[in-house]
Structure formats: structure tokens, C-alpha cells
């Protein structure tokens, strides 16, 4: 087993363990913290896939923004977060079954695919992926329109979130 594999396995176990805790733990703040651990594991995965840019924006966006926003929302709805009773709904066994079935189906489908065992290719020499990504995102031959649409979407979401959550003074 190479060092790379060892790192992968450790990170995968931590991430998946964290994810399981996210969906099972009762205390929502704890769930959010487990989510952060899990997302951090995913960030490391990006690092393993030689996408350092994604590692960093994963931390910035998911941990720095999304997770903290969630913790805020949990605290703002605190009464609900501490409600007694089950933390899962009545159909949880069906949900679990479906997830399991989906997992088996996905793995089975992957395993029948010829590219399943693709080994890690060498990255092209002398290419700065961040530079390439940046150029692709803003060049007309690349993804400038999707990128702009995504930014408009973000702006719209921003305004929409403010409008929706605005407490109207009656």
C-alpha cells in the first residue's frame, strides 16, 4: 500500500464517518460540526486529485460560508433544533433502503464500465491548471456564458435571500 493510498483511505473513512454522523446525530450544532469535518475531508480529496484550487475554495465556501451560515440558521431556529422526539421521519427505513439500493446500483454500474479501473495519468507538463481554469472561465471560447449566468444566479439568490428573510415591520 502506497502512502497515497493510505492517505486516501484515512481521509475517506473520516469523511464518510463524518457524513454518517451528520445524518444521524441528534444535536444539530453537532451535525453541522460533523458536516464541517466531512467537508474538510472532501477538501483533502480535491488535494489528492491535484486540484489545489478546489481544496481552498472548498474551505472558503463550504466551511467559511455555508457551514457558518447553517450554524447561524440553527441558532436562529433554536427552539426547533432542540425539539424532543425522533430526529428522523416515519419513512426513514425506506430512505435507508433506497440509499443502500442506490449505492449498490451505482457501484454495480461503475464496475461494468470499462473505464472503472483507469489509473492516474500524468498531469500535462508545464501547465498551470489554475491559469487554464481562470482563462477558460472568462474566455468566449470557454465557459464565459455559463460563468456569467452563475454569477447572475448568485446575485439573484443574494437578493432573493434578503427579500425572503426580511422581517416586515407591520
Amino acid at each position, binding site marked *: 500500500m502506497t502512502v497515497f493510498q493510505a492517505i486516501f483511505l484515512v481521509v475517506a473513512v473520516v469523511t464518510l464517518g463524518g457524513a454518517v454522523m451528520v445524518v444521524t446525530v441528534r444535536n444539530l450544532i453537532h451535525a453541522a460540526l460533523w458536516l464541517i469535518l466531512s467537508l474538510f475531508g472532501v477538501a483533502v480529496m480535491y488535494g489528492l486529485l491535484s486540484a489545489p484550487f478546489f481544496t481552498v475554495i472548498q474551505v472558503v465556501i463550504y466551511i467559511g460560508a455555508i457551514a457558518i451560515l447553517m450554524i447561524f440558521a440553527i441558532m436562529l431556529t433554536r427552539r426547533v433544533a432542540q425539539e424532543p422526539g425522533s430526529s428522523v*421521519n416515519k*419513512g426513514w427505513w*425506506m*430512505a435507508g433502503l*433506497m440509499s443502500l*439500493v*442506490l449505492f449498490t*446500483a451505482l457501484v454495480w454500474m461503475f464496475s461494468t464500465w470499462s473505464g472503472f479501473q483507469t489509473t492516474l495519468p500524468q498531469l500535462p507538463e508545464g501547465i498551470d491548471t489554475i491559469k487554464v481554469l481562470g482563462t477558460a472561465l472568462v474566455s*468566449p*471560447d*470557454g*465557459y464565459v*456564458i*455559463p460563468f456569467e449566468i452563475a454569477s447572475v444566479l448568485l446575485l439573484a439568490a443574494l437578493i432573493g435571500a434578503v427579500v425572503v428573510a426580511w422581517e416586515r415591520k407591520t
Partner: protein
Amino acid sequence: MEASTLVWLLPAPPLLAFFLIILLTNRSKALSHIMGVGAALLSFIGSFVIIVLALQSGHLGEEPFTSVLNWFPTGDTWFQIGVWVDPLTVATLFFVAITVLMIFLYSVGYHNYGAPKGDHDAPGLQPHGATVEDEHGHKHRVPSIEPMYSRFFAFISLFAFGMYVLVVSNNLLTLFVGWEIMGLCSYLLIGFWYAKPSARAAAIKAFLTTRVGDVIMLLGLAYLYYLTGSLSYNVIFSEETLHMLTSSPTPFFGVSAAVVIGLFLFIGTIGKSAQWPLHVWLPDAMEGPTPVSAMIHAATMVSAGVYLVIRVFPIISAGMVHGEPTLTMNIMAFIGAFTGLFAATIAVAQNDIKRVLAYSTISQLGYMIAAIGIGAYVAAAFHLMTHAFFKALLFLGSGSVIHGVEHGVLHTGEDIDPQNMFNMGGLRKKMPITFWTFLIGGLALSGFPFITAGFWSKDEILADAFAHSSWAVLIVLAFAALLTAFYTMRQITLTFLGESRTESAEHAHESKWTMTFPLIFLAVFAIVAGWPGIPIDFPVIGGFIPNFIHDFVGETLAEHPETITFNFVPLLISLGVSLGGLALGWLVYKDVKAGEPDPLEKPLGPIYRILKNKYYFDELYDFLFVRPSIWISRQFTYLWLDQKIIDGILHAISRVAFSLGGLFRNYIDKPVVNGFGDFVGESVKWIGRASRFIQTGRVQQYMVMALIIAFGTLFYYLFFLSQP
């Protein structure tokens, strides 16, 4: 600037106006309508620059103005969007630009700009009127301004944007985007007075009915994309693609892909252009403000449906050998002709001024569809254009009439329906501009010979039907034309001619210039728009103006349509039906009095009393056969000839038309169409009731169910279908 660059900009002003109005100027009514009308004017100017450039270019058919843009990378290729201006686009742009601008301008007056705020007007309701005090201290009720004035302009701007997108796009996907934007706006505008339950119901009905067509159309688009990998016109209308489409079989009854796609797209048109059996939404859509009716039912949305089938004519006609119509075309000819007649008969028995026009629109659209069905797509495009002008004119005119009568209603305080034609009459003198323009529009709709645009376009359709030997289509359409002329004249007679039948009609007065100017402008086009389409070999007047429409629009397709040689038979038919219908309508309705029912409604007893009092023949015969022969005249001429023969013939014809209309309504529309509709509705309701325990409102449960179904399908696919 390159022409193709300018084309990109055509839809921009209305969209910009929409956003500016909703975001910035919705507090200020003046700014909002300046935005809206200004945007329409900019697009209008842009369109005319394009049209002039297009006319100068000479070979627009082979070399359309086009420009494409990469939208989204799809693997190794790009999904491209772009603009495309070919002769068909130019023709459509021509009437769209004019009617849209005129309707925008008209809306300013229609919504009583400049009038005071109502006493207790609320958003979502029609204005109720305001009380004003003049210098003597007298209190008057006057019309009040629309409370949601700015919102209206925002919505119709978006609507215009949708139409421009649809017209200039170079692929069926952006066309569909424009199509759906219009669907949304139509919903919003029909339900503009959303506080009225009937308006809400009409909006929902329109939205859901057209949705049926749209979904199937989307399926057609998806199938087309699946087969060809593109939706751009230059790809899907190319020789190879069409050949591939006609030769690829489908699982549906062994017909070719071209037929399936053509039919699916045509079903989209059925929904949008309100063809039978999806026509039910259009008459109800009259709940919206009148400019909306003009916008939807004349200029834009319903035209879009016909525009689509003309646009995809290569697919519809793919596989046509020796002028033999394809299956798609036969279906289209049937549905179009049937709708044409069917709607015309219903129109005869309507009293609401706008409802008559709505059925008339359905009927005229049926005309165009039938024309495409027999292969006469140039004639269809021609009629589409002339119809847009005169129907927009008629709608705007009817709005002006209603406006005038409403004014009278407010003034007198009567409790009458200002849209019922039997409450009008004699408006000729009160509203002269409206009358003359409405008359021009009405004559154009009836196909008044030689002058009006409607005559030339209708004549061309009939001539095409004759030339293609489509006798059934020819006869049905001719009969529909007769009825069209009849009910048009009935409408004009009831509304404008004779004497005022109510106090309110007496107090009606002419509308403001913002409303009359569009009427005059459109009236001009309702006449001259037909002239460039006069056949070259028409006796006497043919050839003064070259048959420009045929040459120009005919260039759209690679294969130019053959010119039809002139024949007297269709000419005589169209002359006969139009003049005959007009005369008949005038004769039957010229003397309807206040409070009296429709002369056609009770053809028995009461009608004698009506006729006893006054009839044109009375005075004539009295004058011819003076006192000594009074006994003969009474016994013979009056009682026998006049009342039995002449009246009998007239009544027979009208009774036939009326009962035919009633027949269609009672035995086809009500039991079959409505019954089918009700059956569908009832069974959906039953199924819904039976299965509503599934719908708990809990999203997560829905998702679980969706997953179960997805897995079920997947397993079925994997284990039963993909086995070698």
C-alpha cells in the same frame, strides 16, 4: 453596423423596459408608459431598418442575415444560438413591429392615462370610475385610471420581447423560449384583473390548455434534437436532414420521423393558435384588457403558432412527391378547415362584441392552417400578415367601442353590460373614427372585394385550394367565408348602425387620440397590406403592383412554390360569399330595437311582430303600388311574397346557419369536445380523489416515491429490455 448585429438588438428594448419598469419606474405611470412605448418604438425602428436592408439585399432566401453565438459546450461541439432573418422573418417582423407599437400606444389611452384616480379602485380589479366636480359643483362619474398601469406595461413589454425572440431566432430552442415567455405573459395578462374570479379561471384555463400543446411540442423538439443533434434552421431544414428524417422509421404505426415530429410540432400550434380541439381557452381569454386581446389574438401569440408551422413547413412537407400532401398536411388541412367553419358558426350566435371576434380569430387561424395543409404556405403567410392587421384593428376598435359605452354607463349609471352588442347601436355618429376604421377592418375580415387586404389573402387561399383540387377544403372554407361576412356585418350593424338602443350608447363619445391614432394607422394597413399580393394575371388590376409577397416570401424555401394561374371560379366564389354574407347580415340586423332579442333567436312568432312594424320592403312596395292596389299588396306582396317568400328565404338561411351553429355547439362542441374534456376532467378528478392519500405534502416522501419509480424503471430497462 452589420445587419445581423442589429437583429440581435431587436428583442432587447422591450426586455430592458420590462426590467426598468418593474425595478425602477413602477411608481411613476408616465415613466412606465414612456419606457414601454419607447421600447416598442425602438424595436419598431430597428425592425424597419432590417426590413429595408432585407428588401435591398436581393437574395435573402439563399443568404439570410444570420449570426450565431456559442452558447454552451456540449462535449466536442457547441450548442449554438443565433439570429436568422429570411423572407418569412421579414414578413412576420413587418406586422409584428407595427401591431406591437400600435397596441402599446393604444394601451396608454385604453387604461385612461390622465384620468383621475378612482374612488375605491383596487389593484386586480377593473377601474370603477371616479367622481369629479366641475366648476358649478356638479358631480360626474368619469372613468378612472387603471391602478396597475405600470404593471401592465411591464407585462406587455415582456410579451413583446418573447415575440421578437421567437421571430428572430435561428433555432427551435430559442423559438420555444420565446414561445414560453409569451405563454407566461398571456397567463399574467389574461388574469390581469386577478381579483375577478372569472379572470383567474380564464388565465388558468389558457395556461393549462396551451401547456398541453407545449409539452407535446417540446417532445417533438427533443425527438428532433435526438435524431439530428441540432435545432438550428440551417441544419434541420437541409436536404440531407430532411431525407434522413423521412427515411428513419419510428415505433409509432410505422410512420416516418418527419411525420411524428411534424405532428408533435403541429400540436404545439394547435394549443397556441387555438385550433380545435384546444380552442377552448381563447374565447375565455377575453377576460383580459382589450389591448391584451389584440396582442394575443391578433398580432403575436396566436400568430406564433401559425408562424411555427410555416417555419417548419420543410419538415411538415418532407416526403411530398408530385404535390401529393403528406399525412401531416392532410391532418392539418382537416383540422384547419374544420376549425374555420366550426368557429365561424359559433361566432354567429354570440352577443359579446369581443367574443365574436375571438371566434372569428379561431376561424381565420383555421383558414391559415388549412392553407398550409394544402401546401399553400405563401398564402398562409400572406393571410397571417393581413389578418394580423385587420384583426388587431378590429380588437382595438371593439375596445374603443366598449370604452365609449363604458363612459356612457358611468355617466348614466345604468346597469348594463357594456360589451353586449344589443346594448349598443348608432355609435356611428358618436364615434365616427372608430366606426370608419372598424368598418374597414370588418370589410377586410369579410373579404370585401378588390380594396381590402383580406380579400386578396383569402382569395389566394381559395385559389390555392382550387388549384390543388382540394374540393372539400374549398367548399368548407367558402361556406366559412360566407358566415364570416355574415357575422361581421351583424356586428357592425348592431354596434354602429341604426339607433342607440340604450341610454349609455347615447352618451358614448369618441376615444382619445392615443386610441384613435392606432386605429387609423392600422386601418391603412388593413387596406394596403393586401396590394402587394395581387396575382400578376388578375384581370384589369393585376400587374400594377408586382406580386411581391409571392416572390419574396416564396424565396424562404429552397424549392420555390409554383405560381398559380388565375382562374375565375375561386374569384367568383370569394366575391359571392363575401358580398352575399355582408348583404345578408345587413338585411337581418339592420333594424334591431332596444330590448328586442336577436332576430335569429326566436325565428317563430315574435319575429312576425318585428317584421310587421318595419321592413325596408314595406315602404318600397307601398310607394310602388299606391292606395288602389293596397289590398293586393297587403294580401299578395306583403303577406305572401314579403313575409312568406323573402322572409322565409332569409330566415331559412339564417335558421340553417343558426341551427348548424347550434348543432355544432350542441352535438359536437358540447357533447363531444366538452364531453371529452369533462370526461378527462372527471376522470382526473376521480383518479386524483382515489390517489390523494399519496399526496401527503411531504417532500421527502415524494422523493422516496420518485426514487422507487426510477429504480423500478431502471431495473425493468436493465433486466428486460437490454438483454441481448
